[in-house]
């Protein structure tokens, strides 16, 4: 039999308010174990009837000590932790972090690696947007759309498992390159998946875009203006839905984005409907980019031939003493990164994903800080929740795409 229940459990938070501000208002607690808040956000809301007067958003329920953990692992060994930040699009985190370390070390990756990283980053972005839209639609009741999109996402997961060995958190990026090259037939399967995805997203558009109920629930709900969004630090699809065409891939191109032809979709009002539509359009744009990259992919090595970070060939490790020692040093001490600091940002699926690294020389970082878009969005979420109905919290929250691992790190 289970032990008798505790009568009091400690409250881990201190809400900003515990008294109502107007006559007859009620304070309710939403979360943190709640399907619509993605399990890790607590919203303390003051309601007057069904209208939300003010909210206090609490995150931190998934704070896993990423920064502290990184300070005791080598630059290579912490790549799995980096993966689990935005776990919906894990490859983008890998590549953003690896590029930051490569900047500190002064390494330039090979051409094939550059194009392949771009391709896989866009592929991951598709997976993230599929997850976000599927979850948001399911929370509104559109179960069919959820099943369609998650089916495609599952194909993507299996496909990436063929390449990296894992379905969700890949640990595929390496400092100076990638873990392994593409297997045979991978690009053909990629084309098949993208074609099937076009069919399925077309069906979702047909189910939802002009659906009266969907429009009533999403149009003019959770509105934020461009100026407000910039002030509150919003980036990514949230900022683009307000009409500001800001995208790091276009504004400060990195990897191979300067050579690709793609548009940056923007919304008109900054409401939930625009955020949904911007994400669906971004899925199309990413598929378009991937198709271009498949044709542009050059042959060549995946990892840069630099002994400071790349492992020597196994044949050499078994036969030459220098390679053996090199391999040993890389594994035990980690790649030696010169002292310095760098802030390097990529356009993650949610916005500007930045890594601020501080090195004092040696194989273990002094500080690894992740500037996560979801955390900043939580800071400004109350601007989109206050003043609307209680039932609007669910779609607004779903359209923000708060990823717990990224928000709380």
């Amino acid at each position, binding site marked *: 039999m289970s*032990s008798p229940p505790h009568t009091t*459990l*400690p*409250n*881990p*938070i*201190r809400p*900003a308010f515990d008294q109502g501000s107007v006559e007859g208002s009620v304070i309710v607690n939403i979360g943190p174990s709640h399907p619509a808040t993605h399990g890790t956000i607590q919203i303390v809301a003051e309601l007057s009837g069904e209208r939300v007067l003010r909210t206090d958003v*609490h*995150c*931190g329920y998934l*704070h896993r*000590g990423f*920064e*502290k*953990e990184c*300070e*005791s692992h080598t630059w290579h060994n912490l790549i799995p932790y980096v993966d689990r930040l935005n776990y919906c699009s894990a490859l983008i985190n890998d590549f953003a972090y690896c590029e930051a370390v490569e*900047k*500190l070390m002064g390494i330039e990756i090979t051409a094939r690696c550059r194009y392949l990283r771009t391709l896989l980053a866009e592929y991951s972005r598709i997976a993230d947007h599929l997850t976000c839209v599927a979850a948001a639609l399911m929370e509104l009741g559109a179960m069919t759309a959820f099943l369609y999109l998650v089916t495609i996402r599952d194909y993507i997961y299996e496909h990436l498992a063929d390449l990296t060995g894992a379905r969700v958190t890949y640990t595929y990026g390496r400092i100076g390159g990638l873990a392994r090259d593409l297997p045979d037939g991978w690009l053909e399967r990629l084309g098949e998946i993208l074609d099937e995805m076009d069919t399925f997203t077309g069906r979702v558009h047909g189910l939802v875009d002009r659906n009266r109920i969907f429009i009533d629930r999403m149009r003019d709900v959770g509105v934020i203006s461009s100026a*407000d969004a*910039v*002030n*509150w*630090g919003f*980036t990514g699809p949230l900022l683009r839905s307000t009409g*500001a065409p*800001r995208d790091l891939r276009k*504004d*400060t191109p990195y990897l191979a984005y300067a050579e690709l032809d793609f548009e940056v979709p923007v919304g008109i009002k900054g409401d939930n409907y625009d955020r949904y539509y911007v994400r669906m359009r971004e899925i199309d744009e990413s598929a378009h980019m991937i198709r271009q990259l498949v044709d542009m992919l050059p042959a060549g090595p995946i990892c840069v031939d630099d002994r400071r970070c790349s492992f020597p060939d196994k044949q050499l490790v078994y036969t030459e003493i220098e390679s053996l020692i090199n391999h040993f040093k890389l594994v035990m001490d980690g790649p030696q990164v010169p002292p*310095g*600091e*760098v*802030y*390097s*940002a990529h356009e993650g699926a949610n916005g*500007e994903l*930045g890594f*601020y690294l*501080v090195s004092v020389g040696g194989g273990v970082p*002094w*500080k690894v*800080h992740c*500037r996560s878009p979801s*955390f*900043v969005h*939580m*800071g*400004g979420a109350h*601007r989109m929740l206050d003043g609307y109905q209680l039932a609007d919290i669910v779609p607004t929250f779903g359209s923000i795409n708060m990823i717990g691992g990224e928000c*709380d*790190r």
Partner: protein
Amino acid sequence: MSDAVFEQVRERLAGVAGEATVAHGTLALEVEAARLVAVVRTLKDELGFDMFLDVTAVDWPDREPRFDVVWHFYSTRHFVRIRLKARVTLADPTVDTLVPFYGSARYMERECHEMYGIVFRGNDDLRPLLLYEGFEGHPLRKDYPKQKEQPLVPYRDAKP
């Protein structure tokens, strides 16, 4: 183009900010903690740095002053980033808050406060955000042992 912006920033802030270096595409400025608000006001109103990205701190336990508080800003017009650094001591780890300028500073200052103990003067809402009520200490400081847990719920005897 970013070089032109950096030159402009350097000239405009020559008297107010300290040493300026450009590395890896970012301009890093040393500022004194007391001059922070003046520098940020100039950056935001005159030089077009309208997005506040991040505030964090770096702990150098063997150095006095111990902490480096680091701010990152981004300009959505010129597409460049800037880093500000101020040094504060363990005895008085206080800097001014940027909440009047940028809304996004609210949450980020809370996180920096609970992780490092940096006090943001003027920000009256420095409740724990990622940590919980009752957590003692500042875990990202180098003298906080990584595995020191402070459980909220007492552990039970886990029988196999």
